[in-house]
């Protein structure tokens, strides 16, 4: 009942917009669409034309220099989600744009509003993507409001032979902006959605941000005479977004189901587990995931038919699991690749061209 109502909203929204030929419904914009390259002509669109909610549009107008980072953050999140789930039954495929939808449909379909583990991952990875791209912009000197972490410009450990230098990533600004851009709109949502879903989304956004902060590391470079480490400069840097994606995927695999009857504080669904604390970087979900094996047009689930699988693998990408026991088809594909490459002085690489045939398996 609740789910049906939730599903109806996007359709109603699109219908309304189409009928009235107006801009997208005021508060239903989804910023994640900015990460899709084929979406409109993003470089030419102003804040008012983008799929943002009203508060996000206002923030966009006040800080237009952040628009490239927001777009890049969305792209990072979507790309990493696809990468982490590319061999799973749910493979994080995004909806394709159509003119009638006017980018108000949920980018991830059912998964974005379902309160499942998949919802948790999407919120976390998108929030992390935004932190990551904004912080990169700060370090690259693209912003006036932020830059390198200036508290680490001097100091270090002369006795150990190193000192702070270079450009340390200042993740705090990115965290602040991510909260402002993503969390405030959620907090200010009217009572249409369940309170527990809102709390869940806020928590998972923060879990994504905490992943970026937690995985900060120290990079060093030796630049003494003849490459010696007598002189060494160190800086703090964010991990690659792939590493952050792995971290969150692991959290997804160990995510925690919370009770849907939460009042003031979120608590675990299983009563016997309620004494175990919920950590800031845990991913939380309310509802169990649907069956991703078979197509469900109502929920926008494509099923695994036609997916490429690995015949020899026993893991998630193996044909047995991915095809849900339905079996697979095999066909032969011819590849032409460079092989036996050698560098010839000076200066080119010479390769032979090799042809090979491989079996490709797809789910029935």
């Amino acid at each position: 009942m609740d789910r049906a109502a939730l599903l109806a909203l996007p359709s109603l929204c699109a219908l309304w917009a189409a009928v009235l030929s107006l801009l997208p419904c005021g508060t239903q914009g989804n910023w994640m669409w900015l990460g899709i390259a084929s979406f409109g002509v993003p470089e030419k669109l102003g804040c008012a034309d983008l799929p943002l909610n009203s508060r996000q549009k206002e923030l966009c107008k006040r800080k237009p220099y952040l628009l490239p980072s927001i777009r890049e953050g969305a792209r990072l999140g979507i790309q990493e989600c696809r990468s982490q789930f590319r061999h799973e039954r749910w493979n994080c495929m995004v909806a394709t744009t159509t003119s009638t939808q006017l980018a108000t449909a949920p980018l991830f379909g059912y998964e974005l509003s379902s309160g499942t583990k998949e919802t948790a991952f999407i919120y976390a990875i998108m929030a992390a993507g935004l932190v990551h791209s904004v912080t990169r912009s700060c370090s690259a000197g693209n912003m006036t409001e932020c830059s390198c972490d200036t508290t680490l410009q001097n100091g270090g450990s002369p006795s150990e032979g190193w000192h702070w230098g270079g450009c340390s990533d200042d993740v705090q600004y990115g965290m602040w902006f991510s909260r402002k851009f993503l969390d405030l709109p959620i907090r200010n949502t009217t009572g249409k959605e369940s309170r527990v879903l809102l709390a869940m989304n806020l928590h998972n956004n923060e879990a994504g941000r905490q992943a970026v902060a937690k995985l900060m590391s120290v990079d060093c470079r030796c630049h003494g005479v003849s490459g010696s480490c007598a002189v060494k400069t160190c800086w703090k840097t964010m991990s690659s977004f792939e590493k952050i994606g792995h971290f969150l995927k692991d959290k997804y695999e160990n995510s925690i189901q919370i009770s849907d009857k939460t009042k003031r504080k979120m608590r675990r669904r299983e009563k016997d587990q309620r004494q175990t604390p919920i950590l800031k970087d845990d991913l939380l979900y309310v509802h169990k995931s649907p069956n991703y094996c078979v197509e469900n047009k109502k929920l926008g689930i494509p099923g695994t038919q036609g997916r490429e699988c690995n015949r020899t693998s026993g893991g998630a990408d193996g044909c047995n699991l991915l095809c849900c026991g339905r079996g697979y088809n095999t066909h032969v594909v011819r590849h032409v690749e460079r092989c036996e490459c050698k560098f010839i002085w000076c200066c080119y690489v010479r390769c032979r061209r090799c042809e090979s045939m491989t079996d490709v398996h797809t789910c029935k």
Partner: protein
Amino acid sequence: MGVGRSARGRGGAASGVLLALAAALLAAGSASEYDYVSFQSDIGSYQSGRFYTKPPQCVDIPVDLRLCHNVGYKKMVLPNLLEHETMAEVKQQASSWVPLLNKNCHMGTQVFLCSLFAPVCLDRPIYPCRWLCEAVRDSCEPVMQFFGFYWPEMLKCDKFPEGDVCIAMTPPNTTEASKPQGTTVCPPCDNELKSEAIIEHLCASEFALRMKIKEVKKENGDKKIVPKKKKPLKLGPIKKKELKRLVLFLKNGADCPCHQLDNLSHNFLIMGRKVKSQYLLTAIHKWDKKNKEFKNFMKRMKNHECPTFQSVFK
């Protein structure tokens, strides 16, 4: 059932070109076996050290990048394979390797070093061959030790490819022609009297003195050099009160010849560096005002600026 992919290449463009080439050649009935990837002014797939640093680009090797400007190609990728992000940084770090190059410890030294400091512009990064690294290291580290240096972490050989595409000038099986010279000259004494080379040494050394030598004697496998009179040109780590009691060491040089020290009756240009509590000689020249090259060096020294670490990395 299902759509098969007929080719898989490195990137769509390369794949397309490859297919077109294959089709054309097959149609002509004279299929060549080889593909060539030559100079690339547009570099796409490099992943430099910090993954979001400025994008790699192909730039001219400047004349004043002395380590590499005559290596055999004219353009390099920046940032390089040692994660140096600016040309100033490349120059600063490369300058201390130029004196080693002049020692001719291995014929592949320059090719090896420049494959990292000034990597050739191709569609992907190509590292030096592991065997080349090992050959250069094994031949050159003994020379480096005369100056108090050891093979640095950043050039550790086990990080370079073995069977993959890699850079080397000569085939792997070439036997290195060893030169049995009986006794080799002490490396700090094996110098070319060229103003350019002396300047490079000056920049790579921590201190430089004009001095007269009182005596030379052996001590713990080193040659100990006791000065008589000294005038600093570049003090570096030497404190003024230490200057009075300064004693220099020719590291591991007890038994190798140093022809400059055969005659102690004139002034010397001495360069060195401090290692722990010892002052090591890195280069020695007779102070010869009549020599054209030496005179040229003195003139150039007055306004020459060595690349400095501080200005590069702030």
